[in-house]
């Protein structure tokens, strides 16, 4: 299964690298969201600084919608789904591979956004260990959940509108947890943030298992 996952992750990332949409469009979109927040919320330093953690993760989630949509679209291409069904690849492996590819893209995106908030919102990174751990676990959670929900709506004409409607409420706990952890790291008490990080990790494990189990059945439905 892991071998299949590596194969699929490689494919997904190779396609993204070739088409460069992630770099040239999703990244700028994420930064644009940060800028829009600055327009909407009086850039008098106070508001943006206090809200940095939340705005960061909202930007991540919105950008993740694009990333997840593209991940799902990869397999909607003419005949690819049939090919996957015929290939003998383990469906759980396909799921994990896709989720890993999404996670890799989101992590890269978060690095860019981190630079963005440091520069644009004057954030001061403290509690680095907690920040990194939160990013890893929250990203895993978003990638696993999003890949599963992406499969739920893959191939449907209304995928683009239905995916956010289904996955964002499910990701609400991730937003809550990641934001609280970041708040603790950025000038709060880091010790308070670790339990939230634990929640995120548990969430990621749950959805990884659910996705690996369900992906086979979802691949079959046309």
């Amino acid at each position, binding site marked *: 299964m892991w071998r299949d996952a590596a194969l699929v992750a490689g494919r997904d990332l190779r396609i993204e690298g070739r088409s460069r949409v992630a770099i040239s469009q999703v990244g700028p979109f994420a930064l644009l969201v940060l800028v829009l927040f600055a327009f909407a919320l009086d850039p008098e330093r106070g508001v943006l600084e206090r809200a940095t953690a939340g705005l960061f993760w909202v930007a991540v989630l919105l950008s993740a919608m694009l990333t997840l949509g593209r991940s799902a679209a990869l397999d909607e291409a003419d005949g690819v789904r049939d090919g996957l069904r015929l290939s003998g690849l383990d469906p759980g492996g396909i799921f994990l591979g896709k989720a890993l590819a999404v996670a890799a893209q989101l992590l890269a995106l978060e690095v860019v956004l981190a630079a963005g908030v440091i520069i644009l919102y004057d954030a001061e990174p403290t509690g680095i260990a907690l920040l990194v751990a939160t990013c890893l676990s929250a990203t895993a959670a978003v990638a696993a959940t999003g890949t599963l929900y992406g499969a739920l709506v893959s191939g449907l004409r209304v995928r683009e509108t239905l995916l956010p409607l289904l996955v964002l*409420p499910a990701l609400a706990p991730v937003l809550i947890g990641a934001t609280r952890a970041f708040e603790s790291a950025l000038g709060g008490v880091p010790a308070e943030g670790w339990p939230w990080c634990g929640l995120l990790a548990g969430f990621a494990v749950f959805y990884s298992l659910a996705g690996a189990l369900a992906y086979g059945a979802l691949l079959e439905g046309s």
Partner: protein
Amino acid sequence: MTAIAPDPTGPGRSAAASGPGAAGAGPATTGSPGSRALGIAALAAVALATLYGLALSPADVEMGDLVRLMYVHVPSATACYLGCFITTAASGLWLWKRTPGWDVLAGAGAELGLLFVVITLVTGSLWGRPTWGTYWTWDARLTSTALLAVLLVGYLALRRLDLDPDARSARVPILGLLLMPNVFIVSRSVEWWRSLHQRATITTLHPQIEGDLMVALMTGFLAVTLVFAWLLLHRFRVGWLEYQAQRLDLDQALDARRSEAGAGASRPTGDEEVAK
């Protein structure tokens, strides 16, 4: 919950096992002696609850007459959770047993869940306005209830799509299975989060209720539960009839296609329908 006796004359759950013969006779109504009795009981319970809620029980010491909203609000919230539970359980059973009745039940449960979550939110808001001066506040219960409403809307949106049966049979139940875990995780997270921001000035939506007020609350529970059961029964039966109507189509379609083939041998090829 009240027991719903399967009715021999109506397409109750036991009809799932009967063969194509029973499918031919479509009943004109989803009513049955059992459901009518249930309906009467539900009406009586609603009348009783109204009586107690509005007249016979005293106003609360702290909240005044507003507490009467609680007699609807609290049972509705419970009914909503019940609907979600039914959806998830039925989705799981549908995946396991593949009996179509479970899929119908899952849809019915979600629709009722949505109905009652809206009632919960509206009564909660009406209660909140005079109490807090605002229609909405981000306390744990309201927030997670609102998210629950969105989860249900999403699930019903997926159901509403016109999908191939193959696609439906995998996607819809898996989303249904995820419903209760989502509800659970979301409400736990939100409560944990909001508990970090205790504000003494905000009173909870669930004050201590005793004595006569408790009686009124109990009648509210009874009424809501019976209404829920009655609605569920009928919604299930309607859904079941829809499903059976679709099944009849297959045999007819098979016959039509095959006889087309026989007649088509002597017809120009331009008449054949494009199936691909």
